[in-house]
């Protein structure tokens, strides 16, 4: 079956709170789901539930028509999750981080790595220990990782955080290219991302 992510009637409690109350959606190849909502609405919770990091009390997530729990490792090999904090080792350089971090998912050539870094304008500082990078520089390294993984499904939690104006634009371009290539993206955002309206669905959590 072609790429499609569907969530049915998700219910999630966090502590005392009923955070997701019957959330459902379908996103298919070439589509992006923008999740919005006030602080604490449940955007992060939703994305982590889709990724399989949180277990909903009710409802299921389907990938290519199958529940994601069934063949978890296949689902995960097609998915990339980038959360509030970038998963980087301060003591390794940006390039090394990607070599090891993405390397356990797929083999790639050094050229591909360079190309990904260049696309996120991270080449200049890719060979410095991540510890010495600014907040936005780290995000750019992490974004190069998203590209390099070539996953079909992107799960991005506030991807524009810490990025400057050119970075905001970059996010938009990257997602558009990903969708054009038949990928799927789910992004939690606070600032409007002007994506092509036809390819975008919005989900407002309350």
């Amino acid at each position, binding site marked *: 079956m072609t*790429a499609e992510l569907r969530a049915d009637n998700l219910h999630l409690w966090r502590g005392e709170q009923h955070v997701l109350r019957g959330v459902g959606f379908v996103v298919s190849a070439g589509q992006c789901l923008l999740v919005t909502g006030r602080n604490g609405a449940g955007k992060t919770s939703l994305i982590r539930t889709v*990724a*399989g*990091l*949180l*277990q909903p009390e009710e409802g299921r997530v389907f990938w290519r028509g199958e529940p994601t729990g069934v063949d978890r*490792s*296949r*689902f*995960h*090999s*097609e*998915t*990339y*999750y980038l*959360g509030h*904090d*970038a*998963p*980087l*080792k*301060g*003591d*390794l350089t940006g390039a*090394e981080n990607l*070599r*090891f*971090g993405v*390397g*356990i*998912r*797929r*083999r*790639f050539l050094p050229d591909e790595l360079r190309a990904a870094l260049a696309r996120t304008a991270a080449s200049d500082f890719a060979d410095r*220990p991540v510890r010495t990078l600014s907040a936005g520089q780290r995000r750019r390294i992490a974004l190069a990782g998203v590209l390099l993984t*070539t*996953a*079909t499904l992107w799960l991005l939690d506030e991807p524009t955080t810490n990025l400057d104006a050119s970075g905001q634009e970059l996010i938009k371009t990257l997602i558009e290219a990903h969708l054009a*290539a*038949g*990928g799927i993206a789910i992004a939690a955002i606070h600032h409007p991302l002007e994506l092509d309206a036809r390819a975008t669905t919005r989900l407002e959590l309350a």
Partner: protein
Amino acid sequence: MTGGQSVSPWHVARLTVERDLRLAFRRPAQLVQPILFFLIVTTLFPLALSPELSRLRDVAPGVLWVAALLSSLLALEFLFRDDAQDGTLEQFALSGQSLTWLLFAKTFSHWLLTGLPLAVVAPISAGALGVDFGSMPGVVASLAIGSFALSLIGAIGAGLTLGVQRGGVLLSLLTLPLAVPILIFGARATELAIKSEPYGAPLYLLAAFAVLGLTLAPLAAAAAVRIGLE
């Protein structure tokens, strides 16, 4: 889209071990720390106890093993901690690769970096405690195998305490009861080695523990880590 060549388990393990070794060698000071800690603890005893070598030799197996155990425990805390904090573990769990296998690779490199060096320097401490030179092979062998078993068992505890702030002491608590058999047989093997008696039997038992740990611990650790990530 999901293109590129797929990766073999060996490649995954190699990358993981290489990453950990590289991280460790980035900070050489860290590499020697478990060793120094071990050496220091073994020198503390004579200070707190008595400086007579004959009496020290009697307690040598106990001192060596307790020092090794503590040094392992201290190091264990960092087995998964950093990776959990910076999100690497989350990425492991979401990588589509076997988490069990990834964690085994991590545990192995942890042993390479902490347990093995400890066994290698043990003769220095043993010498300071009055152990004869001829007994060293037994001391080293028992510590090498024992520390491997300790790392494996510790991996379970390290996984379980992930969600717990300041897990360090709790980790020790969880691991120590499981580590007691290793301590007993290890100290026994060392004692026999020091007395120049055959120490094969306890050593085999130690190896048996290591094999048991090898098959079970990574599975349990993976389950523990999955829970810790929620």
